[in-house]
């Protein structure tokens, strides 16, 4: 990161007096003043819960029995988590979904955001952006109701469309296999469940990324494009060589959020498997989902705490790798 400005400022020589010491102190306190909201809220509201859950990970605790019923068990929770087949299965599912559900989000969101910002304006742009954002504001209840209906095997819209495609002229041949495999049970087969969940996640969060990337593209000044045009860049080159490098901090930000968010994925798989221990063959059991199951359904909070710190460590490692490789450019900005 750059050195900050204040040291460079020319200053008159002063005698190191009381007044200047106070001034220096005040000066050194200025950054702390600005970050104080985070520090205070973190210390007041988060420090204890974090400490508590570390403590908890070394205890055996059925929460229903109250705070006094904890029993110290040392590293037992961690040790038994390490050879827990469902935990590893859930981490595998989480990573699978992280790739399948996140890469498309960014591949769709970046070009759409660019088109929205670069080619459209006024009300039209607002309307498009707003509608694409709608999935993000839809409540989980509505999402589950809707997607259950879409994925439903016998009457679901998805299967109906596939059937319709198979009877269409020209492209029908491509879908000739469809009638043979009907009805496709999207949520009832272990190998179809993950793609079905991934689709819902893409559907729900792409709009959010569009907004983040729109904010990014909006920081690029018109002059840059004009200069590129003078240099003979076509529309594609403007996007690829001018716009894309400029929004690097936003890609860095959105990817960081995606990593953290997808490794904590819980609601969508939970809802689409009706909370039924991860669906067929636990194909939809993500790490956070498993954590929830252990802590809140099986009432083994100590074990859940240990799992959550293992998960935390896992996310931290992945994020660190991301910061190590992309952080320098990602955090710096373009100025």
């Amino acid at each position, binding site marked *: 990161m750059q*050195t*900050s*400005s204040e040291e460079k*400022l020319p200053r008159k020589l002063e005698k190191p007096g009381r007044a200047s010491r106070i001034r220096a102190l005040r000066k050194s306190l*200025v*950054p*702390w*003043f*600005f*970050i104080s*909201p*985070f520090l205070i*809220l*973190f210390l*007041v*509201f988060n420090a204890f*819960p*974090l400490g*508590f*859950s570390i403590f908890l990970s070394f205890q055996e605790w059925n929460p229903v029995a109250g705070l006094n019923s904890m029993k110290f068990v040392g590293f037992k929770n961690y040790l038994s988590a390490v050879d827990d087949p469902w935990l590893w299965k859930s981490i595998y599912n989480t990573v699978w979904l992280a790739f399948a559900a996140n890469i498309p989000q960014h591949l769709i969101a970046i070009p*759409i955001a660019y*088109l929205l*910002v*670069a080619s*459209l304006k006024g009300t039209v742009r607002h309307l*498009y952006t*707003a509608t694409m*954002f709608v999935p993000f*504001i*839809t*409540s989980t*209840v509505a999402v589950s109701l809707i997607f259950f209906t879409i994925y439903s095997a016998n009457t679901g819209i998805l299967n*109906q469309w596939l059937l319709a495609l198979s009877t269409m002229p020209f492209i029908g041949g491509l879908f000739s296999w469809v009638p043979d495999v009907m009805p496709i049970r999207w949520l009832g087969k272990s190998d179809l469940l993950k793609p079905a969940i991934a689709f819902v996640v893409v*559907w729900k969060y792409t*709009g959010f990324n569009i*907004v983040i990337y*729109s*904010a*990014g593209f*909006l*920081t*690029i*000044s018109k002059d840059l*494009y004009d200069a590129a045009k003078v240099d003979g860049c076509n529309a594609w080159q403007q996007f690829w060589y001018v716009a894309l490098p400029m929004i690097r*901090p936003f890609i*860095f*930000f959105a990817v960081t*959020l995606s990593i*953290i968010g997808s490794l*904590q994925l819980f609601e969508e798989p939970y809802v689409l498997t009706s909370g039924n221990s991860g669906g067929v063959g636990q194909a939809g059991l993500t790490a*956070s989902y498993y*954590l929830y199951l252990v802590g809140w359904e099986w009432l083994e*909070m100590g074990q*859940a705490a240990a799992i959550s710190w293992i998960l*935390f460590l896992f*996310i*931290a490692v992945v*994020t660190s790798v991301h910061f190590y490789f992309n952080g320098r450019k990602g955090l710096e*900005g373009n*100025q």
Partner: protein
Amino acid sequence: MRHLSKIGLHAVMLIGVLITIFPFVWVALMGTHTRGDIYSSPPPFYVGNNLLQNYAELLDIMPFWTVLFNSLYISVMGTIAAVLFCSMCAFGFYAYNFKGKNLIFGIMIASMMVPPVLMLIPSFLTLKYLGILDTHFALWFPGAASAFGIFLIRQYMGNSITRDLLDAAKVDGASDFRIYWSIVLPLIKPALATLAIVIFIGLWNNFLAPLIILSSPDKFVLTLALRSVQSIANSPWGAIMLGTFLSMVPLLLAFMFFSRQMMDGLTAGAVKG
């Protein structure tokens, strides 16, 4: 050629719009049907005639406008606080170098990685100790210095606030707070608007915290009220769907408002294709 690409552009956008708006329209339509109709197979995709009864039932099963107002209050307060706090912290992280900065920034990023399901019980204990259980304050204040928001705004500053600008302001003798308030804030309006959208929606759709924190029915928020009347078997789904639809409308309006701020509040100048 130009027309053709214009048509292509709108075709792409419209496909996106169709896929994304579908559920919204569907929820709206379901709000006009009876429970029996909603649960027919395939479900009806047209306007039903039970809207008024659903509305009457909605008012019957919950104080709809009260809880809507509570949601609105919490979301607005939390959004204002978050925009202020996050921009302050982001400025602190962006404009200064100080000892421990990277460590604190690291802790902040790490704090996003702790699975929230586990924090429920200890957070409840904290709020109990502070004596703010069953208050709206406990819902919007603790999360106001959100790591997400600080990170977002810091990234935006990286693209839109030059070091030269900060230095120049310093030389001109502007105080630190003045630089933040009068120079930086106006320049990062789009980021503030983006943050405001996300925070507003997050607070509005939050139900886990209200579930455990609130106990007085007159303080309930919309998500909680809508969930509390659902059971797997016997829910007035027509009314619930109408309520769900009505609860999405303020979010959409909020989005339109902030998105306009975001798109129009540009200093760098809009890009034209």
